[in-house]
């Protein structure tokens, strides 16, 4: 496939992020890359994606701020507060901007279950903000499971009637970065691609192929145990976690090679099953996360 980075070996650890960062740096020197305005909207969620973003290493948050984007709005990080903060948000809509959204859109009570600020003396709901900002954005990134498909915010019985961003912006193209939370490289690497080369190649579910192309199971270091039928019986065992409910066989993302937090570990490396947090349908479609009894005979399947 044109543009796809292969073979998988080149995706190990920091490879992609470093490749993109060094190219970005060079381009910046040659003035090929122009900082673009970014609006980072937090909606109905835990703000865990922006915390994960602060864990970015190459690039880190400082580089992102100084060399990649003009961060116009971020509830977690901006110094302004109240009306002045919302003014900044509204003013940013006048120009071109990339919109990144984390958290789901709460529909209940016409959006009033998630108020992100006051605008003109009235509550500005996440629902209003998502629609208004989404319509005018040059590019949209849905960041983390809640934004891509509702995620934990929409877990049954979904008391806030939360939905993914696409549901309130049905006609807009958006890049979806599922994960709970998103890995900083998935977000920053996608952002770098946008700035350098335009939208990255995505699959039919709008996920960038450079991160979400391959099943965890296909690159799992514990795959040899699976192939030989050696299975863990409890958390903490060092063999294949399939029978404890591992969702590696259905989850497409590069955790086995990239790993987390400076590339030091990941859930399966910690002797626990993958819970499919980067797969659409998380959490309900991936529950139960942990079971000790998946070896029962399954009927009607």
């Amino acid at each position, binding site marked *: 496939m044109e543009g796809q980075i292969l073979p998988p070996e080149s995706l190990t650890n920091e490879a992609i992020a470093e490749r993109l960062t060094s190219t970005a740096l060079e381009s910046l020197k040659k003035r090929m890359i122009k900082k673009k305005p970014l609006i980072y909207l*937090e909606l109905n969620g*835990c*703000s*865990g*994606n922006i*915390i*994960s973003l*602060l*864990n970015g*290493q190459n690039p*880190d948050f*400082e580089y992102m*701020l*100084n060399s990649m984007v003009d*961060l*116009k709005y*971020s*509830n977690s*990080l*901006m*110094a*302004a*507060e*109240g009306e*002045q903060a*919302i003014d900044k948000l509204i003013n940013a809509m006048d120009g071109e901007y990339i919109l990144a959204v984390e958290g789901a859109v*709460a529909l209940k*009570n016409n959006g*009033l*279950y998630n*108020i*992100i*600020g*006051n605008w003109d003396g009235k509550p500005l709901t996440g629902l209003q903000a998502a629609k208004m900002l989404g319509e005018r954005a040059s590019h949209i990134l849905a960041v983390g499971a809640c934004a891509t498909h509702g*995620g*934990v*915010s929409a877990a*049954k019985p979904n*008391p*806030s009637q*939360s939905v993914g961003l696409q549901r309130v912006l049905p006609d807009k193209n958006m890049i979806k970065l599922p994960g*709970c*939370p998103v890995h900083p490289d998935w977000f920053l690497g996608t952002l770098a691609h946008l700035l350098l080369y335009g939208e990255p190649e995505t699959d039919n579910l709008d996920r960038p192929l450079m991160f979400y192309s391959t099943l965890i199971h296909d690159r799992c270091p514990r795959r040899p145990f699976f192939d030989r039928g050696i299975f863990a019986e*409890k*958390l*903490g065992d060092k063999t294949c976690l399939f029978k404890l409910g591992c969702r590696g066989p259905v989850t497409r993302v590069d955790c086995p090679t990239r790993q*987390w*937090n*400076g590339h*030091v570990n990941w*859930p399966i490396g*910690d002797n*626990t099953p993958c*819970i499919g*947090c980067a797969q659409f349908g998380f*959490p309900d479609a991936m529950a*139960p*996360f*942990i*079971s000790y009894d998946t070896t029962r005979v399954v009927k009607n399947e």
Partner: protein
Amino acid sequence: MSKRIVINPLTRISGFMEIDVTIDQNQVVDAKTKGNLFRGFEQMLVGRSPFDAVYFTQRICGICSAAHSMASSHALEDALNIEPMEQGNYLRDIIHCCEFLQNHIRHFYQYTVPDFVKIEQNSLFQTDHDDFRLPKNMNDRISQHYFDSLKFSRLAHQMLAVLGGKAPHNHGVFIGGITTQATAEKVVHIDSILVRIARFIDEKMIPDVYDIAHFYEDYFRMGGGYGNLLTYGAFNHYKELGTLYVDPLVSTMGSVETFDESKIQEKIDYAYFKSITNSNQPNEEVTEPDMDKEKAYSWVKAPRYKGLPFEVGPLARLILSGAYNNGISAMDRTIARVLETKKITEIMKILLQQLIPGVNVQKKYELPASSSGRGLLDTTRGALGHWLKIRDKKISFYQIITPSTWDFSTRDDQGYRGTAEEALIGTPIQNPDKPAEIGRILRSFDPCMSCATHVYSPGKQVKTIKVF
């Protein structure tokens, strides 16, 4: 003449919060803190596998996810009648220490510092007020530390991931302790980072907070509040080590006594919940969210201890452990958070020294048909409690009272304001059009409205809920 000030959003916190204050003659005479987000976690948990609570409840909060894995593991151990091995406790508490370090470093540099230091590197840090008092060289130095600190909070999460798999939303903390074993490699990986973080705290963070305090000395006289302090205990009751930090204690009007969990109540008079009339099993009853309720103004309910509102968090812990006695104010709270960061590195060092390599603390756990349990412990922002019930091997009831529910509670039927609301009363506002004081005082509590407003709990007719 009285004037109303509404700040919404209060930025640089986790989650969404509005503050509505009335000032008269440039002094705050009334205040309401409002949680502006609701997801309904406790309703979502009903019917799920009890084992899933550990990973599921972490999703309440991105900045303090490990805290919820700790409390739910404790609650499940209580319900399953499991006593973790001491090695399990040590390993799990080390993960918790890592989260304290990540959280406190970020809260101080990314959330608090922009209130007092004019960071000129980027337009993200433009403010409306201009009350910046530090000399230029000091201002520039601390601005640089804003960015330098990113490495250390990131490294704190890296230590967490060495034992916990990933962060935020770790996989390691579980019933019995954690899911991986100590090895020499992991211990030195963590210790080598810990040394660097401890140096950063000593050389940068502590001097920075005292420099800020020196130039904003009036904040030692603002944001005090009721002065009632509470902790469920932190890094305490080890079999051989005893208490490394603080035991479960409360202090009212300066008199300290042992904390008694049967004295907790939660009130919903001013929160967006309607109560149900029938109450055969009050703890099982589920209230409905109701945004049209008269008088209600927030998603945050009102926990009370012996009927009184309490402050929780680093300052409460330091004072109750006897390690701090300067006072209770916005600046004391911020200083306490920084001093506690250092304290946590010392605790973590001790815990690391206790580790025995290769001990697997995990077992194959059986679920009881029915049971109940609770997990109460202090975490970054203060006292956190999870209460759960199991029926037919599924969760039938889950209740969470977070630290920010204590600090940012709504008022109650007895006329008591919430802790942070009370802390604002009497605050002099220099410029009502650009009030810097309100945000500074509220942030000294480190509000986590993601946590405070994601809870959903039972009510009954009298609108007072006794928690077990």
